[in-house]
């Protein structure tokens, strides 16, 4: 059975437009002008149960609108839609019992109360009896390492601790399908990695379908097997993450800082993107041409390396590369 099926799904908004200036504001008061905005344009997409799908695109591409239609928050204006065999618009409450959501920007925890109190409320909302709730909270506490701060008001938690509580809260009712919208936004690398491992484990052990949007390429590389890229409300690319990796994620950025000014040796597949006085440099490495370990070794041989970090290129650059390449095809 498919977890998500959409056919020519569309959402059109009516937006008010107004020219610049006060006079235009008065004119708009008397005679408002409206335009239609196609936030989502004819998206057809199937997601299998147990699949982990990355749904990516630049800001304003229509990702959030699409997810909100899948969750039953927004009504589609065109096309067909089925999530876990249900119509989100007509069967919102039934669907909500079976899906979990983590929207990095929106919290479902009560700021002034400990997370455990929010879990109690969620148990009432999801019709989980007290004994079962205690069992699940204990399980999630162990899995997510919440024990130290489960009884601390959420406002006093670090962002990483709060996000761990958010993800745990979204799993309390054991959803079959998990929507994650920027779940690692603002987190440090260690916490990001912990969150990814927890999500992957949930998918492995419970077969939970994961629908992920993220601007962090590492989230996509490490969690998903398939990626769908959208822009201007339509699908630009639907491919395996393996293909995405080989075609678009093959580049890595190395930031290096030396104790004394150094000259970076010329290497095939390596571009020195910026250099400031010879003490700092950013290298773009095409890993298909030269392994990252090789470049690291060469850098350390130059001597006096004080600091070195490896990063993925920004998602915007990857998406821009996808658009360029797909346009050529």
């Amino acid at each position: 059975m498919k977890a998500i099926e959409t056919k020519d799904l569309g959402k059109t908004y009516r937006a008010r437009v107004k020219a610049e200036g006060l006079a235009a504001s008065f004119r708009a008061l008397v005679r408002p002008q409206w335009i239609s905005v196609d936030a989502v344009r004819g998206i057809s997409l199937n997601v299998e149960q147990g699949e982990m799908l990355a749904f990516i695109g630049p800001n304003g591409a229509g990702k959030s609108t699409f997810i909100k239609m899948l969750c039953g928050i927004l009504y589609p204006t065109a096309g067909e839609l089925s999530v876990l065999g249900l119509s989100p618009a007509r069967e919102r409450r039934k669907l909500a019992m079976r899906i979990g959501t983590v929207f990095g920007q929106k919290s479902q925890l009560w700021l002034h109360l400990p997370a455990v109190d929010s879990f109690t409320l969620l148990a009432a909302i999801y019709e989980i009896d007290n004994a079962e709730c205690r069992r699940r909270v204990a399980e999630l506490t162990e899995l997510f390492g919440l024990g130290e701060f489960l009884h601390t008001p959420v406002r006093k938690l670090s962002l990483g601790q709060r996000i761990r509580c958010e993800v745990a809260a979204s799993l309390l009712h054991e959803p079959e399908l998990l929507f994650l919208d920027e779940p690692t936004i603002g987190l440090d690398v260690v916490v990001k990695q912990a969150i990814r491992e927890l999500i992957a484990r949930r998918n492995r052990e419970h077969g939970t379908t994961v629908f992920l949007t993220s601007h962090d390429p590492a989230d996509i590389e490490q969690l998903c097997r398939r990626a769908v890229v959208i822009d201007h409300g339509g699908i630009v690319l639907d491919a395996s993450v393996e293909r995405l990796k080989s075609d678009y994620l093959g580049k890595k950025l190395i930031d290096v800082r030396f104790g004394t000014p150094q000259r970076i040796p010329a290497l095939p597949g390596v571009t020195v993107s910026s250099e400031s006085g010879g003490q700092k440099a950013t290298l773009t490495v095409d890993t298909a041409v030269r392994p990252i370990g090789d470049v690291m070794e060469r850098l350390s041989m130059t001597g006096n390396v004080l600091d070195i970090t490896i990063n993925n290129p920004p998602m915007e650059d990857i998406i821009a590369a996808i658009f360029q390449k797909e346009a050529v095809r």
Partner: protein
Amino acid sequence: MKKHLKIAACLFRLNLASALEYRSSFLTQAFGMALSNSSFIFFWWIAFQQLGGYIAGYSFQDVLFIWATTSSAFGLANVLFANAANVTKLIVSGELDAYLLQPCNVLVNVLCARTSLSAYGDLAYGFILMGLAYHDTAAAWLWFFVGVLLGSLLFSAVTLTAHTLSFYWGDASMIGQLTTEFVINFSIYPDKIYGPAVRALMYSLLPIGLAIHVPLRLFRAFSPLTALAALGASLLYCVLAGVFFSRGLRRYESGNIMATRL
């Protein structure tokens, strides 16, 4: 129904626990509101001292009754359903998402999700006034309780209806605020000081008169027909407010603002 009562009870406990996180703020606001209400009663006392026994057909005792009922009804509405006054913000900023993602009635979830600290002062103040003015009159207490229950529902329903307009017109916060002020003014003065058009309004579109002035009349002279009519009309208004909100929900357009639950 049972599930939603459980959710409402759970939200009430969380709201109260959240309020008690800031004990001094809670106590200051609650006592401050009770003190503010007392000043109005003092002015009414002076007015009756100057003008004699009745103002627009109401004695000082009657004014104490409508003040007590209004204060406790408004207090109860805002202890239990303070989020009614926040509906415009939830709609305009896209914060309804969090409620739509949960498998329960959106309206129950929204209305019960917030409490007002000062409302505890309003709620208590009505009981204090009744204790002072009608401590040994059982019938007065009966109609006071009826008025408080119906009034709390009507205060919330009227506020909700005004803010629901945001689904259709954009930001209706000003209408919501004005409506709340109107219904409070309709409640705390004898209804006969208003002209026929305003009186028609306070028993129809903004029907707070049904919960404040009608119980006073029923206390003075009981009429089963009036009691049933007031009860039926009040409940019908609340149901229609709920339907209006549910219809409006279909026009909800969400948003991407950062949000957290307080």
